Each structure stands twice: as structure tokens, then as C-alpha cells.
């Protein structure tokens, strides 16, 4: 590999900082403006993100004109300690460019939608403030010119996600979910921080080019690359809700639906994929780490699918499908080489259709008085035609049916998984294929139960209605993306990303392109047809008794929470109690008994202070006698 070198930013790119500054200022304004801005503040939020999108487009086209396809802007020196200097720097290259467009583009649509969705919420201004803060932090994450700047954005999105998940703090479940997300993410962030320290220790720098070039030149030992890879993977796993840190993501659905769409589908949870894609050089240096990434991707995608089949809450199903789709992306970026770009295009396409699905779910909830149980829907296709049509586009896209976007992005990933050498190709390719079939099954179940079959509303007087235009318009745009984006992305993006990732042609392994395509399509059709046949008449109205162990396990999210409780919480609590006991009895015991000894002896000595001259004289005499006796012992004895 050639050494990596970043060209410094000139021309359009000297305004790179403005991309982040606009939503950041928006957040600052909205959070400080107070009640005065309640009536119109949300439009400020929409405007800042939209103008960032415009700016991003301008820079995207400017980048196309450059020969070396990078723009590195150094803003100021962040800190300087000894030999280590960390700059506040931004990097705009093909990879961050596509992310910037995704974040600001999909972000603008979701902001627009949120104007309608949050119309009756008292905290709408605060909501948009947090939303803008999130966009700013996410842009900092993808634009950060070194790992440290990326980490600042990484923590920023964690904070914004916490604030937004627990936005309705008066609901205990929302407050708990926010806390859970925050804590789980902190566990992962430990990985990121340790990775930063490892870089500083091994390379003496956290700059992308310095770390990567050290890897390319072979200066990093395999132990360092292993540690670095695993630590970065830990960080990515937490942020992206992958196995074994997946439990926070479904609970995060307590936040308002636009949050689920923006943060937990389109952007933040894909940050883990971005991190691995950005650090692909480190991962490619060590095949153990790569295999670990692939394995985590494969485990997670099946995990998410299986749990998704057993959930009844519309947003939770979508959340589990996010977990599973990001598993596909992990699988792809773990495979490395040409598959890296496949992971990114699936991420982009997923941003469109999953955001569309979430917003569609929000629209359904809007029309159904915040009902989220899919067993209580049914027959909505006549009442909400726009939501129905756009949701259908997202549904066909996510299950990977030709000619919608998921087909063009998921299919090559399955192909690439089969291309891995030896038994791994069969295992990983097989899981990806099985995952596609199960995805088709549970997404069809969700779709059919929500929009088709007989009405199963609890309140017969309730009349579902279509959402206002401000919510429908973003849905339409996202649906168009779900229809067309996949083909366009698959055609253009791998080529566009080649300056970052290198090669673009896929190697074929166990199975050829046509075979995989036929297999995948038939698996998808099979899964979807089965679900349609099972649930077309409405399916279960109340929860059926779980007959098999796998259903029981899936209903309780494959015991993810219980595993956490058993492996982490219980020993943690025991450790805490033990520490408290040792602290009380041991440390405090020593200190307190020392104090008590001194206090007690002072009280005893106090009795000697009688104030009688004669008793003092007696003690002086005693002292004198003692001195004389001692002298006698020394000199005579």
C-alpha cells in the first residue's frame, strides 16, 4: 500500500468548519433563546441543518474536481504535551463526504418531519435544540481529522442521544432507557479511549495519517494491531448496538420517533461502521481482528432477526432490524477489501429506507393515538394511503427485493461473505443468506399486521387519519430514496470511495454472482410469502403462549438483559457491597479506632490537669527522680 497523505484544505474547503458550526450555533440559539422562540424556533433548527446540507453538496462537488480527493483543515492546536500534539483538524475525503451528505440530507428531512410530529409537544424548541446538537456532534465525528476529534464527536452524539432518548423524562421508562443507552455506550467508549492511548504509546500520535502510515510501513507489531483493532471494535460494537452490547438500542425507542429515525437508524448507530471503515488499514493488518468483526456481524444479524420475529411493538421490531442490518454492515467492513465499500453503500441505503420506515411508524402512531402494538393495527392501508405507499417502499427495500435499494446493497454483501476462504465462507455466507430470509419474514409480518387484514383497534370509535403534509413530504422523499438510491449508490459509490478503500472489484468464492442472486431472491420470497400467508387474516390478537424454547428466548430478546444482569450487574453489585463492607470495617475501622484511641487516652490524661500546684510539683518531682534514676543506671550500672 502507498503511504497516506492529506492535502490541505483550500477554496471551498476553508469553510469546512462551517458545516459543524451551523447546527452547533442552531443548538446554542435554541437552548438559550427561551420561551420567546417557542413559536418559530423549530424552523431555525430545520434551516441550520438544511444549510449544512447545501454547504455539504457544494463541498461534495468541489471534492469531485480535486485530483487527490482529500482536504485537511487544521483549525487550531488542541493540546501539546511533550512530544504529543493534537490538532483540532477536519478531514473531508470521499468517505466523510458521503456521510456528511447522509447526515445532513436525511437529517433535514427528519427535521422537517419532526416539525409536524412534535407540533403538540411543549418541549418542541428544546427538542430541536438537542436535535441540532446531535447533528453537529455527528458531523464532527465524521469530519474529525484525527482519532481525538472523532472521539469528541463520538462523545457528543452519545450525549445528544442520551438527552433525546430520555426526552420525555417524566416517563420512568424513558428516563431508564436513556440511562441504559448512556451507560452501555460508556462501556464501549472505554475501548475508544484505550485505543487512543495505545496509539499514543505505539505511534506517538492520534492523526489518521500517522497511525495508518505506521501500519503500512510495518512499524506496528501484530500485538499492537490486535489490541488496537479489538479496542476500536469494542467502541464500534457499543455505538452500533452490536452483540454483545445490543440491549440498549431497542430500549432507546422510548424517545420520540424522529429520534429513532435520525439517531437509531440513519446516523449514530452507523458510527461504528464508519469507525471500522475509517480504520480499515489497521483491521486489514490483522486477520484475527478481521475475522472477529465478521463473526460479530454475522452473530448480530441473526440475533437481531430472531428477536425481531418475536416482538409486537412496531418501533422495537424496527430497532431489532436496525441491529440486524448493521450486522450486515459489520460483516461487510470486516471482510475488508472491496467489501468495505459494500458496507458503506448498505449503510447509506439503510439510512434512507430505515429512516423512512421509522418515520412511517411514527406516522402510524400519530394516526393511532400513539398505539405501538402491531396486533392493534390492521386495515390501515385505506386510511393512510401515503404512509402505506412509502412504508411499502421501505419494506421492499429492506427485505432486499429487486429492484429496490436493499437488493443492490445487501446482495453483494452476501456474495462477498461467500467469497471468504474455506469454511468461513460457508458459515458467514450462510448466516447472511439465512438472515435475509428471516428479515423478509418479520418485516412482512410487521407490514401485513399493520396495514392489511381486519381492523383490530381497541377503540371502535377511533378514526385513523393521514398525517399532515409536513410529515408526508419527507416520507415521500425517503421512499424515493428507498426505491432508487440502491441502484445509484451501487453504481457510483464504490468507485467514488476507491481513493479511500482501494480496489473495487469483488473476488468470487464458493458461489458465483448469479447463484447467490437466485438464492437470495428465493430466500426473500420464501420468507415474505410465509409471513404473508401466516398473518394475512390478522394473526394473533393477544400474545400466544410461547411453545418452544426459541420463541421464549426471542420474546425476551435472547436473554440479553438477563445475561448483562448475570455477568455484569450481579458481580458488580457484589463487588460494590464487598467494597463498602471493607471500607466500613477496614479503612474506616482503622481510622476511627485510631481516633478513638487518641481521644480516650487524652481523656485519661486530662484528669492529671487538676490545677493544684502541689500535684504539678509532685509530677515534677517524679520526673526529676526518674531522670536521676536513669542517670544512675547509665553511669553507675
Amino acid at each position, binding site marked *: 500500500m502507498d503511504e497516506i497523505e492529506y492535502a490541505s484544505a483550500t477554496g471551498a474547503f476553508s469553510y469546512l468548519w462551517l458545516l459543524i458550526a451551523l447546527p452547533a450555533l442552531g443548538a446554542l440559539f435554541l437552548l438559550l433563546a427561551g420561551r420567546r422562540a417557542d413559536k418559530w424556533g423549530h424552523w431555525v433548527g430545520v434551516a441550520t441543518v438544511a444549510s449544512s446540507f447545501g454547504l455539504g453538496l457544494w463541498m461534495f462537488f468541489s471534492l469531485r474536481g480535486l485530483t487527490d480527493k482529500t482536504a485537511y483543515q487544521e483549525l487550531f492546536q488542541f493540546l501539546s504535551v511533550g512530544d504529543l500534539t493534537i490538532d483540532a483538524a477536519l478531514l473531508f475525503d470521499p468517505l466523510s463526504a458521503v456521510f456528511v451528505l447522509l447526515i445532513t440530507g436525511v437529517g433535514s428531512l427528519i427535521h422537517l418531519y419532526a416539525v409536524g410530529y412534535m407540533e403538540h409537544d411543549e418541549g418542541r424548541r428544546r427538542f430541536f435544540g438537542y436535535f441540532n446538537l446531535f447533528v453537529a456532534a455527528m458531523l464532527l465525528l465524521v469530519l474529525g481529522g484525527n482519532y481525538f476529534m472523532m472521539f469528541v464527536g463520538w462523545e457528543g452524539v452519545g450525549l445528544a442521544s442520551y438527552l433525546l432518548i430520555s426526552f420525555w423524562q417524566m416517563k420512568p421508562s424513558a428516563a431508564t432507557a436513556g440511562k441504559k443507552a448512556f451507560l452501555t455506550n460508556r462501556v464501549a467508549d472505554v475501548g475508544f479511549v484505550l485505543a487512543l492511548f495505545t496509539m499514543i504509546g505505539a505511534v506517538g500520535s492520534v492523526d489518521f495519517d500517522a497511525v495508518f502510515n505506521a501500519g503500512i510501513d510495518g512499524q506496528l507489531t501484530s500485538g499492537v494491531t490486535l489490541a488496537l483493532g479489538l479496542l476500536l471494535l469494542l467502541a464500534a460494537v457499543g455505538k452500533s448496538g452490536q452483540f454483545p452490547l445490543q440491549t440498549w438500542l431497542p430500549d432507546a425507542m422510548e424517545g420520540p420517533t424522529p429520534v429513532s429515525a435520525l439517531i437509531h437508524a440513519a446516523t449514530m448507530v452507523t458510527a461504528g461502521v464508519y469507525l471500522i471503515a475509517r480504520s480499515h488499514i489497521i483491521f486489514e493488518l490483522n486477520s484475527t481482528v478481521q475475522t472477529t468483526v465478521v463473526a460479530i456481524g454475522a452473530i448480530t444479524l441473526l440475533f437481531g432477526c430472531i428477536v425481531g420475529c418475536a416482538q409486537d411493538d412496531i418501533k422495537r421490531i424496527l430497532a431489532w432490524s436496525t441491529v440486524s442490518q448493521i450486522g450486515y454492515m459489520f460483516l461487510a467492513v470486516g471482510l475488508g477489501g472491496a467489501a468495505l465499500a459494500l458496507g458503506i453503500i448498505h449503510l447509506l441505503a439503510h439510512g434512507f429506507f430505515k429512516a423512512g420506515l421509522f418515520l412511517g411508524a411514527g406516522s402510524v402512531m400519530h394516526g393511532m393515538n400513539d398505539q405501538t402494538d402491531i396486533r392493534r393495527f390492521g386495515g390501515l392501508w385505506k386510511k393512510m394511503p401515503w404512509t402505506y405507499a412509502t412504508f411499502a417502499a421501505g419494506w421492499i427495500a429492506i427485505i432486499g427485493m429487486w429492484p429496490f435499494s436493499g437488493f443492490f446493497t445487501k446482495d453483494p454483501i452476501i456474495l462477498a461473505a461467500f467469497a471468504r476462504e474455506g469454511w468461513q465462507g460457508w458459515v458467514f455466507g450462510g448466516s447472511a443468506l439465512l438472515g435475509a430470509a428471516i428479515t423478509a419474514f418479520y418485516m412482512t409480518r410487521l407490514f401485513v399486521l399493520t396495514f392489511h387484514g381486519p381492523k383490530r383497534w381497541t377503540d371502535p370509535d377511533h378514526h385513523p387519519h393521514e398525517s399532515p403534509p409536513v410529515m408526508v413530504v419527507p416520507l415521500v422523499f425517503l421512499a424515493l430514496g428507498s426505491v432508487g438510491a440502491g441502484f445509484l449508490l451501487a453504481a457510483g459509490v464504490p468507485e467514488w470511495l476507491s481513493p479511500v478503500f482501494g480496489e473495487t472489484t469483488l473476488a468470487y468464492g464458493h458461489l458465483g454472482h448469479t447463484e447467490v442472486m437466485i438464492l437470495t431472491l428465493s430466500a426473500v420470497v420464501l420468507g415474505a410469502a410465509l409471513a404473508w400467508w401466516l398473518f394475512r387474516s390478522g394473526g394473533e390478537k393477544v400474545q400466544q403462549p410461547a411453545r418452544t424454547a426459541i420463541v421464549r428466548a426471542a420474546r425476551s430478546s435472547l436473554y440479553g438483559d438477563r445475561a448483562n444482569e448475570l455477568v455484569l450487574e450481579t458481580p458488580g453489585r457484589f463487588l460494590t457491597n464487598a467494597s463498602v463492607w471493607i471500607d466500613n470495617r477496614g479503612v474506616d475501622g482503622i481510622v476511627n479506632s485510631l481516633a478513638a484511641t487518641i481521644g480516650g487516652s487524652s481523656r485519661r490524661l*486530662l484528669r492529671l*490537669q*487538676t*490545677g*493544684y*500546684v*502541689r500535684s504539678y*510539683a*509532685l509530677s515534677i*518531682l517524679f520526673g526529676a527522680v526518674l531522670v536521676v534514676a536513669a542517670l544512675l543506671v547509665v553511669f553507675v550500672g
Partner: protein
Amino acid sequence: MNPEYYLILAAALFCIGAVGVLVRRNAIVVFMCVELMLNAGNLTLVTFARTNGSVDGQVMAFFVMVVAAAEVVVGLAIVMAIYRSRRSASVDDANLLKC
């Protein structure tokens, strides 16, 4: 001349003085007993001066007398002050320093 007799006399005087300080309540008597102890000390100093054939001890004895005289002046003043405020010269009445 055996200096031992003088030293024994000095020791006896010192003990009488010490016991007096310890057992008597009247401040004046206590003072006199302190003087007795000082004089016992002076006697030993003079005895050793004679024994060693130098005048150092004699000089020291003079110093002790001067200091004792000065101390008695201060001490008697304190005793007078206490007597004025408490109408008593007993050392046990003046126990305000106890805590």
C-alpha cells in the same frame, strides 16, 4: 574535711524542702520551702567548688541567690495579688488553670 557530710546535709535540706512544697497549702510556706531547696542546691555547689579547688561553684551559688531573690519578688507579688482577690493564701484555692 569530708565533703560527704555537706552533701548529706544538702540532700536532707532538699528533701525537707520538696516535701514542704508537696504538702503545705500556704503559699508563703511553699515559697520558703522552695528557698530551702535552692539553698540545698547552693550548698552542693559550694561543696563541690571547695573540693575541686575552683571558684566556679561559688559564682554559680551567687547567681542562684540573685535569681532566687528576683523570683521571690515576683512570686510574692503574685501571692499578694491572689490574696487580694480571694482572701486566701492557699495554693489549692488558685486552681483556675485546671480544665
